[in-house]
């Protein structure tokens, strides 16, 4: 296999937007039965490269050679005909349609070989084949007549993959497929990827997660500022090589954790319960402390956090804040007590996409930009500019649309927005989801600076590594209950993974995870 012609070879690809080069002589080759990791910081050019391959953007220069033949990919349909399929970060499934209908979308089978827009559909046949594809090629057993909105996120991804496999794609591009997955689901995805690889498919795997790329990929290609920065077999390099290739300099420490002397108790949670979501949750957050809550998807960790922001009612237990009992019925209760909350789904619940960076920065603290009850653009811009400086946000002007900023910078704007409310307690949901290595470190620094002033942070994260790197205490939640409390300084990744899945009462058995 090694010596065959590569199935795909992109040579000297060039692309500019408004005469600004985004890709300069970029190369990417892909062999049959190979998984190649494509990495790079936001703005490095990886999505542009992929969009050229998928026919979304035309290329300015260079060649795309498929199976030894030069091809011209004009649009997305061309790309699909050539066997190139992309599985996007934002899943492109139709939620109200069934699994089978989604797999056969734009590929429907007509009853008795009818064709055209008004053909009668062979629904039974399609259901049968859909089930077979999932079963034989992906080794999963799903009821294909269920609607997409009824099945968990991880399974939806499998449906997307099944769609690609069914359409006989030879090249499958996965754009950050693991962002929303839990450990177990990731394992399943990786298994599917290995199966596909064994079937001779070629996969381009885009991810911000170094460990995943190292473990699943055969080779990794790193882009930096529109150039090839690295192209090596994963067996020949280590994670630090990857990071330095991505950011162009070597890094010492991704987690700028400073262990502060903890202050007095800030927030005491006593036997908090919410029907069917979580029960009997107790912990204490001290000044200058960062607590991480981890666990599998659906274990109740997000609901616990959201209860503290008045978003999710609790029906038993007590929340004691600075020595006083607290009722948190709604968001305003929480905000009046100086709680701040950054939601995990930044695009859905965080940003106002068609508004400016300044608008997004000041929206939670409008009293600061009012003069005589009227909005003062001067004050607004001044605050936004100060935030740009304090949070090292990269933006042309504060009037730039936030949707035109990178994920990392959007997240910094979110932090800046809530810092304007002078919160005493910061509640974070997936604080670094979908942002690049450099930006992650900067966000960690900002969080650390914040707790230094005697504040407290509670965060929920599905990235165990970051929880260990940045938190003081890690609470592992399993089935709505606190399963184990770990000291972040001495705990290991394996311990977190273990307690996410196994009951701590069974500790003595020491079963493997």
């Amino acid at each position: 296999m090694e010596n065959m012609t590569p199935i795909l070879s992109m040579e000297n690809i060039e692309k500019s937007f408004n005469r600004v080069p985004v890709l300069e002589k970029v190369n990417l080759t892909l062999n049959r039965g190979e998984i190649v990791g494509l990495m790079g910081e936001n703005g490095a050019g990886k999505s542009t490269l992929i969009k050229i391959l998928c026919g979304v953007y035309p290329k300015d220069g260079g060649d795309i050679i498929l199976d030894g033949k030069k091809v011209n990919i004009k649009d997305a349909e061309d790309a699909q005909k050539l066997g190139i399929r992309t599985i996007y970060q934002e899943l492109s499934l139709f939620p109200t349609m069934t699994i089978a209908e989604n797999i056969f979308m734009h590929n429907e089978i007509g009853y008795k070989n009818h064709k055209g827009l008004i053909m009668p559909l062979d629904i039974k046949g399609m259901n049968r084949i859909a089930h077979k594809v999932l079963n034989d090629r992906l080794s999963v057993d799903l009821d294909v007549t269920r609607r997409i909105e009824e099945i968990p996120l991880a399974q939806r991804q499998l449906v997307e993959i099944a769609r690609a496999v069914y359409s006989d794609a030879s090249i499958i591009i996965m754009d950050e497929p693991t962002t929303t997955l839990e450990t177990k689901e990731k394992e399943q995805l990786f298994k599917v990827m290995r199966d596909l690889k064994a079937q001779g498919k070629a996969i381009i795997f885009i991810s911000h997660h170094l460990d995943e790329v190292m473990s699943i990929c055969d080779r990794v290609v790193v882009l930096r500022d529109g150039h090839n920065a690295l192209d090596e077999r994963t067996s020949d390099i280590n994670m630090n090589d990857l990071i330095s290739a991505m950011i162009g300099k070597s890094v010492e420490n991704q987690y700028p954790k400073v262990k502060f002397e903890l202050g007095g108790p800030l927030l005491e949670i006593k036997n908090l319960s919410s029907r069917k979501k979580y029960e009997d949750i107790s912990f204490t957050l001290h000044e200058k402390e960062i607590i991480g809550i981890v666990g599998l998807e659906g274990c109740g960790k997000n609901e616990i956090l959201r209860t503290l922001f008045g978003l999710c009612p609790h029906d038993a237990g007590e929340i004691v804040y600075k020595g006083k009992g607290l009722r948190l019925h709604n968001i305003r209760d929480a905000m009046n007590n100086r709680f701040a909350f950054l939601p995990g789904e930044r695009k859905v619940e965080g940003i106002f996409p068609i508004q400016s960076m300044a608008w997004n920065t000041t929206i939670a603290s409008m009293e600061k930009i009012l003069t005589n009850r009227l909005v003062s653009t001067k004050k607004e811009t001044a605050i936004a500019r100060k935030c740009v400086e304090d949070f090292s946000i990269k933006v042309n002007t504060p009037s730039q649309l936030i949707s035109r900023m990178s994920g990392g910078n959007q997240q910094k704007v979110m932090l800046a927005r809530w810092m304007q409310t002078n919160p005493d307690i910061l509640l974070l949901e997936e604080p670094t989801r979908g942002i690049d290595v450099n930006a992650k470190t900067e966000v960690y620094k900002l969080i650390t600076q914040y707790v230094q002033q005697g504040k407290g942070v509670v965060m929920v994260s599905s990235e165990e590594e970051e929880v260990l790197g940045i938190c003081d205490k890690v609470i592992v939640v399993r089935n709505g209950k606190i399963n184990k409390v770990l000291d972040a300084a001495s705990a290991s990744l394996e311990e977190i993974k273990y307690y996410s899945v196994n009951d701590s009462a069974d500790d003595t058995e020491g079963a493997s995870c």
Partner: protein
Amino acid sequence: MGNQVELSKENKFAGTVKKLLSANGAGVVLAYAVLVIFLSIATPYFFTLDNILIVIRQAVWVAIMGIGMTFIIAMGGIDLSVGAILGICGVIVAALIKGGMNIYLALIIALVAGMCFGFINGLLITKLRLAEFIATLGTMSILRGIIMVYTQGIPVYGLRFPEFQFLAQGFIGFVPFPIIILLVLLGIFYILMYRTRLGRYTLSIGSNEDAAKLVGINIDRVKLTVYTLTGLLCAISGILLTSRSEAAVAEAGNGYELDVIAATVIGGTSMSGGKANLVGTIIGAILMATVRNGLNLLQVSPLWHQVVIGAFIIVAVSMDTLSAKRHSNQ
């Protein structure tokens, strides 16, 4: 990131020009310019002060309600009941005055009634969680029905009271009084939209309601306020229309909701919410009145008016969407 900074320097001038051309509502200004030039050549009377004032006066009802509609559409909603609220407020003020009530008191009652109808829309949307389209479709039908039941289809006429006539027929200097009312309202609501929390929160809800909730915005309160204010604006329009015709007709304002929505969208306010162009809405309303005026001056058969107006709406809005598409494609 570095790329973006470079880009902004290099293309600053070109960028400004492009921005102006692709700004919300650039299409409507262009369409309006073409229309005015055409009509000025086609009929000499068109471009006289008299006629211009007539056109604007005809646009006033739609323009005033359009101010409210701009808030609602910018908030991601829609209000189909504006024409019906206009109608019923007109009937209320006419009936009260005719019944011998003090004119000013009658005006206040009609205004309050308008606010109440708007408030009811707001309650249906925020408390019963009805979709805006359905809630206001329902109130539209109910209010229209009440008008018919009350008037039995017979106009309430004979409102020949100088103070009342002045509202729509009077002049201050050479400027018709309703135009002054429109300008004052535009000024107030312009400040509300762009310089107050209410405006910010309205636009925030329109651009991302989930995020708006999570920054502590009381969404129900903002929606109630906006629908109530729109009800008030409809009442003002209703009073002006009644004063103009010196009678309240059962069909008054019938179908105005579509004109108001069209004026708002032609003016560059996006149906998907989050963006508002109040001045554009006024221009949109004037544009539609100009088309009607032009058709009259050109002595086009009234049977053809709807066809031309419909075509104009499509042309004006597509100019905007086309320029927006060009803008986002780069």
